[in-house]
């Protein structure tokens, strides 16, 4: 039987970005050597260095940069230049008006309804992808008919919204010319993924319910290829949080969230299996219409031989460690406040945050807070470590203060290294930790400090939690188990579709 082939799609992660999703992708691909992968990474720009060494069973990478390019054809390596040139000159305004405008109108109608009919949305995405196989993307999306249709549709939509509700009022709901320009420019970027021809494989596997899922949706509609969707975080929630910053641009926020919701719902609808990394994620999936029977939770796993326990150097000062990037969602400010409280009674304790700076402005805020709390000598932060196992082994207590998580690797890695853990009760953390550590309400630095102090003062309790945590990882969260579950899923869905 020909080997299984998988089209794996990512967005802002593997193999060009670090983080939990990338770690997961690398581990899965590395540990399924008989499966052939085609990677389709959606990237923010094309000039990023690969963070992961190429693996032998990755047969092809089809990068899709959304920004950092003047037009998509700059990075279309498989298509000869002559063909690109011909396609440009074969795309006239009449062709756009006759062939693309009706599709785009249906597309915008779906977006305005936030993807209430995901089947219809999927079909129009397929037709748009087929259109872009014949016509030039840049010429089409930058054309007068597209702009005029977009403007008319959005004016009609926002007019209807102002009539439907008195709040927030036309001042915020009716788009300015700038709103329309920005919104259509964003759309131009996000729909670049339609300018790619996804290859035919046994199975497709999207690592987010996001734009990277679109090639999987169109492959399903075009070839009948089964689709798996793994949600590490909840993309829709993350985008809601990100776009909440658009305080002054309500129309843009509304348009983008409608678009993203439509894409997310289409992902849920077309996936044959939705495999979130924790039960917590299923809340958003179920709330957006995913049938329960489609959902199969597959927890992340770690290699217990790599994340193995080792005795701590008892002569070293007591040490509380977090492995988290410096990012508002990791709530390093609460970590700092916890450190300040703990050191009131435990002045010898060191605190460290091992993780790169993801948000420079937030990092500056944390540095200011550290200074104000007189913790400059007590708390080290802002640098990643190449020896993450060593970082856990240094710790007496591992502390996670995130305000948003799915199923964090940092928790199960620390558990595997047999460390006592205090973690915020968010996302799937409680599913990982259960009674093997202490869960605390997020942002409650008094409760965090009390829990950390308790563990620092009671080595027997610490060891009990730590041993329980290690046992739980060996029983429930081994990497081999996680990989086995995905491989079984590939075989189940792809057996009949193995492609030579």
């Amino acid at each position: 039987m020909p080997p299984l082939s998988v089209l794996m799609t990512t967005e802002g992660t593997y193999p060009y970005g670090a983080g939990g999703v990338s770690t997961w992708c690398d581990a899965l691909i590395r540990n399924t050597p008989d499966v052939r992968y085609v990677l389709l990474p959606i990237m923010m720009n094309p000039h990023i260095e690969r963070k992961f060494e190429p693996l032998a069973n990755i047969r092809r990478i089809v990068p899709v940069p959304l920004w950092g390019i003047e037009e998509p054809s700059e990075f279309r390596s498989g298509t000869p230049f002559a063909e690109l040139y011909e396609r440009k000159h074969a795309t006239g305004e009449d062709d756009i008006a006759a062939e693309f405008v009706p599709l785009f109108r249906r597309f915008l109608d779906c977006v305005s309804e936030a993807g209430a009919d995901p089947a219809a949305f999927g079909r129009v995405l397929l037709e748009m992808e087929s259109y872009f196989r014949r016509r030039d993307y840049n010429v089409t999306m930058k054309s007068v008919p597209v702009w005029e249709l977009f403007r008319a549709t959005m004016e009609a939509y926002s007019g209807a919204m102002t009539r439907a509700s008195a709040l927030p009022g036309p001042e915020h709901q009716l788009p300015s010319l700038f709103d329309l320009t920005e919104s259509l420019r964003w759309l131009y970027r996000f729909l670049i993924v339609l300018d790619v021809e996804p290859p035919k494989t046994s199975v497709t596997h999207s690592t987010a319910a996001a734009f990277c899922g679109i090639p999987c949706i169109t492959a399903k509609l075009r070839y009948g290829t089964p689709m798996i969707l793994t949600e590490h975080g909840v993309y829709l929630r993350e985008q809601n949080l990100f776009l909440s910053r658009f305080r002054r641009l309500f129309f843009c926020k509304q348009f983008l969230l409608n678009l993203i919701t439509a894409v997310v719902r289409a992902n849920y609808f077309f996936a044959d299996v939705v495999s979130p990394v924790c039960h917590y994620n299923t809340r958003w999936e179920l709330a957006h219409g995913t049938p329960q029977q489609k959902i199969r939770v597959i927890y992340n796993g770690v290699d217990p031989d790599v994340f193995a326990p080792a005795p701590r150097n008892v002569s070293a000062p007591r040490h509380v460690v977090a492995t988290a990037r410096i990012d508002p969602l990791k709530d390093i400010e609460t970590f700092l406040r916890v450190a300040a409280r703990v050191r009131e009674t435990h002045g010898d304790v060191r605190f460290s945050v091992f993780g790169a700076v993801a948000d420079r402005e937030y990092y500056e805020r944390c540095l200011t807070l550290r200074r104000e709390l007189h913790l400059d000598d007590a708390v080290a932060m802002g640098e990643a470590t190449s020896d993450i196992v060593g970082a856990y082994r240094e710790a007496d207590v591992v502390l996670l203060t995130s305000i948003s998580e799915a199923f964090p690797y940092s928790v199960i890695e620390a558990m595997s290294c047999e460390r006592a853990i205090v973690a915020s009760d968010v996302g799937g953390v409680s599913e990982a930790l259960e009674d093997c550590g202490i869960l605390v309400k997020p942002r409650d630095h008094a409760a965090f400090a009390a829990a950390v102090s308790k563990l620092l003062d009671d080595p027997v309790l610490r060891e009990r939690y730590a041993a329980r945590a290690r046992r739980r990882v060996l029983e429930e969260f081994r990497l081999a188990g996680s990989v086995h579950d995905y491989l079984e899923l590939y075989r189940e869905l792809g057996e009949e579709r193995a492609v030579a």
Partner: protein
Amino acid sequence: MSADPQPFAPAEAAAAIDEIAQRVIDRIGVPKDEWEVAAQLEVLGLRDADARLLYGRRDLFELARAIHSRFHAGAYSFFVEGEDPRPYVHPAVAFLRRYVSGLLFSAPMALQAATILIWGYGIWGAIDLDLTKGSAIALAFIASYIVAGGFSQAIVRRGLFYIYQQEEVLARWVALRGWWVAARVMLALIVPALLLNALFDVLPWSMVFTAIAYYVALAILWLNWSLIYLVRKAHLFLTITAVALAAVLVAAKIFHAPPLVANAVGLFVADSLSFAVAVLSLNALVKRRGAAQPVNPPRLTVLVYSTSRFFVYGLLYNTYLFADRVIAWTTPVGREDFPPYAFWLSVRYELAMDLALVVVVVLSGFVEYSIERFSEELIPSEKRIKSVDAAAFLADQLRIDRRRSLQLGIASIVAVAIAYGVSVALRLLPNPRLQEALAAPTTVPIFLCAAAGYIFLMFALRNILLLLTLSRVDAAVRCVAIALLVNVGIGFVCSRSIHYAGAVAGVLGGSMVMAWLASHAAKRVLARLDYYYYAAF
């Protein structure tokens, strides 16, 4: 072990909902829907257990729906900040800043001209050079400027694109690669020139080699200028020119070097200094990023294709600027000096054209102001106007454009007056060759025709820069290409049938056509500015 909250009494739940709701609204302004509210509740640290026990709702989603519903019932106040206030700058100050910035481009030429007139030497050229050498230098200047024009536009266009993307490593890569490709192409063009001369004996070899030497030095200078412009240090053009001129004067006046040697010193200083400034500035840009090599640069074929239209525009525009000289100096019709070779400089013609260039210098600041104001005001204007009121916005843009044209017209009269004043002032200089050229019967007609032509050119340039600002490079290329054909056509016919100086009629005719075409194209763009601004980037 987990931490569950203690329940509030049901009567307090409604007040608690309003309290948490107002916190959410204060964070985000206007919620789009309940999902946005739910996401905010989660990052405020709430869980489904809290929704049940504290707020009497089944889960966070139900709580979010309740909050969103009450928001639409007007239960919560919301505030959305306006745009950050722009710092007030007095209109006269704003105008002067932009005007001076625009003058920076022509200031080096003006300084060079002044130095030649006062001390007799420039970086290229000297007042007492014989006409053979003068013609060679003129040929080299024109050839290098035309060939470099295309490369300069392509390098700057692509380099600025990467700088705006915060890809400074790529900006440096494309700038230096472009420079190197351009230098090789420009040098390679010497070979066919030599072959042409060998086959047809166009010019004496001494003149050819002099021209080649100046061509190479000037080509490098123009390419360096484009790198300096890319890193936004155009204010250093004047400084570098001044230093190079000082080197020329030291060589000539103190060390009594012959004019060609003094020029060579000046060009060497200008080339070295400008290259050093460019490379150091590019390296400083990259240092912030911490990387040395670009990652995954674009396909060469697509890179060349995407910059090719800008290359063509630069090539055509620079050709336009000097087409009349080439036409005028390659015919003996009406010449007083019986040109011995196929290409022969006419000092009278050049002087008259240089006087007319004063109009360009004076108006360039105004054009710069006009384009900068357009760019600065565009986004704030688009933010203020609702799309349903776009017609008023577009009408306003056309009205502003007409006002700028009127202002440019008034400024043109002033510019001509200044140019005339310069010519009167020049009559006070005790240089016989200069006075003879000023007094020649062709000088004033050439000056007046060229001045009028340059006024039309500045009108055209204002609109062409508008088109380029909005990435309408095809329209800009069309305007310049057609105008060039008209320039060459009229200039060739007049110079061959009437008088060599009739070449200047091509400048007038071509510029009038360019002004008309560019104005038409710009008005078309302004009438649909909403679309063209979207499509520009």
